[in-house]
């Protein structure tokens, strides 16, 4: 179940990423006003879209966890939020670089998309501290799922509200994508969406496989030693382990 076909996925991701990079650098036309700088768009925007989709997916996995009480869904939701958080830091950094280059400031407040993304990141930054502060694993998992669902709903709602509150400056990416992107740029944009999605999926599956392998190893050690202590203590961590799942 875990770790199968990972090599195929890894090779595909690597191939698509390389192809996209080449297309971004050599095939996509330079932007008329921003020039080469505009190419950061192919990293920044897909990263942002995948990050937010990952948060929403984590909310759906959390719903599954509360419905089925299967701890594996909690682990899936945790890993999804974990990877989206890392991607999100990338979004903030690439966004700042782009803003500095295009508008001359590292941070621009009249940017609804920027501001709501920061709000979402600030909220999700409390996910791990929340888990860390609850000792009982089952209660931790339930609280984490409640958080993941609430925050998953917050993502689209927050974007709508912040966007309503400010004047438009930021290019509306998905609204009028066919309108403001010439053909070749559009193809490259969808290629980068595909490659970043694949990268997210690959990392998610790697992390799940690693968690599963860790749990299996621990179980084998415990079987061999017939003594809990020899398996080594579980580090105190915000991450759920699969030991209670016992697959």
């Amino acid at each position, binding site marked *: 179940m875990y770790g199968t076909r990972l090599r195929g996925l890894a090779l595909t991701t690597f191939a698509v990423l390389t192809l996209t990079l080449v297309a971004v650098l050599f095939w996509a036309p330079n932007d008329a006003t921003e020039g080469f700088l505009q190419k950061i768009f192919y990293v920044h925007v897909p990263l942002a879209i995948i990050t937010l989709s990952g948060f929403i997916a984590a909310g759906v996995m959390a719903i599954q966890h509360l419905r089925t009480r299967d701890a594996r869904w909690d682990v899936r939701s945790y890993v999804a939020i974990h990877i989206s958080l890392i991607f999100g830091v990338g979004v903030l950094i690439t966004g700042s670089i782009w803003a500095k280059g295009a508008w001359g400031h590292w941070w621009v407040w009249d940017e609804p998309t920027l501001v709501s993304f920061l*709000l979402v990141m*600030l909220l999700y930054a*409390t996910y791990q501290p929340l888990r860390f502060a609850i000792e009982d694993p089952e*209660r931790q998992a339930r*609280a984490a*799922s*409640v958080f993941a669902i*609430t925050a998953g709903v917050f993502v689209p709602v927050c974007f709508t509200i*912040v966007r309503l509150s400010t004047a438009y400056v930021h290019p509306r990416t998905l609204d009028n994508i066919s309108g403001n992107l010439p053909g070749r740029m559009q193809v490259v944009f969808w290629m980068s969406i595909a490659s970043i999605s694949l990268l997210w999926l690959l990392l998610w599956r790697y992390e799940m496989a690693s968690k599963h392998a860790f749990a299996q190893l621990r179980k084998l050690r415990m079987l061999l030693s017939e003594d809990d202590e020899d398996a080594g203590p579980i580090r105190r961590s915000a991450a759920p382990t699969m030991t209670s799942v016992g697959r």
Partner: protein
Amino acid sequence: MSTLRDGAGERTEAPAAASALRAPPSFRSVVAALLRKELLVELRTFESIPAMSLFSVTTYVLFHFGIQQDTVKGPLASGVLWVTLLFASVLGINRLFVADAEQGGFDGFLLSPADRSALLFAKALALFIYRVVLELVAVPAFALLLLGSSLAAAMPGLLVVLALGNLGVAAIGTLVGALAVRTRARDLLGPMLSLPLLVPVVIGCALSTTPLFSVPAGGLPLRWLLTLGLYDLVFAVIAFALFDFLLED
């Protein structure tokens, strides 16, 4: 039970009385009882409301020195009022479930046959009432200490926005309070979780009241009231759907 209470002579009525006793109490009566308990505890201990009110007045003084102005109007007035009310509310949110977690209130409630959502409703109502009492102190104090425009003229619109803001804080505060209370670092997690979730409420409230506090006073922007109302509704539904899972043990 019923035989004990009714005495031996009335044993014929016992089965009916027993089934009446066994029928679960109505949702409304449970909420009323819980709310009564909540307010009684607050009246006896004065744990939340005095702290929240005092905090708001002190914050105005801090704002006066921080922004170095004697009076504020327009967006600045809106911002000072709503940020102060928000931070004062966070104090109440942090205390909301502490007595239940520490003194067995959760266990007692879970042992009773009452619907668990009743606790959410009662706590949210209590938080709403705390906010109203807080505003009874904080809004006049704001007008007295800082506001540069007329409060009387802004009052009708302000009441609507206050009510919508209270709803949002009550819904989100109750959910976050229940989420944070049984963690090790609840005093830290409460604000960390509730502040980002309440930013849209502050956006909506502040933008709604900016015209009211401007010097040629404007009307209430309906779009913002609608947005605020929708946000309140969404999170009230979320709190209602998820609260049960936080009570399980």
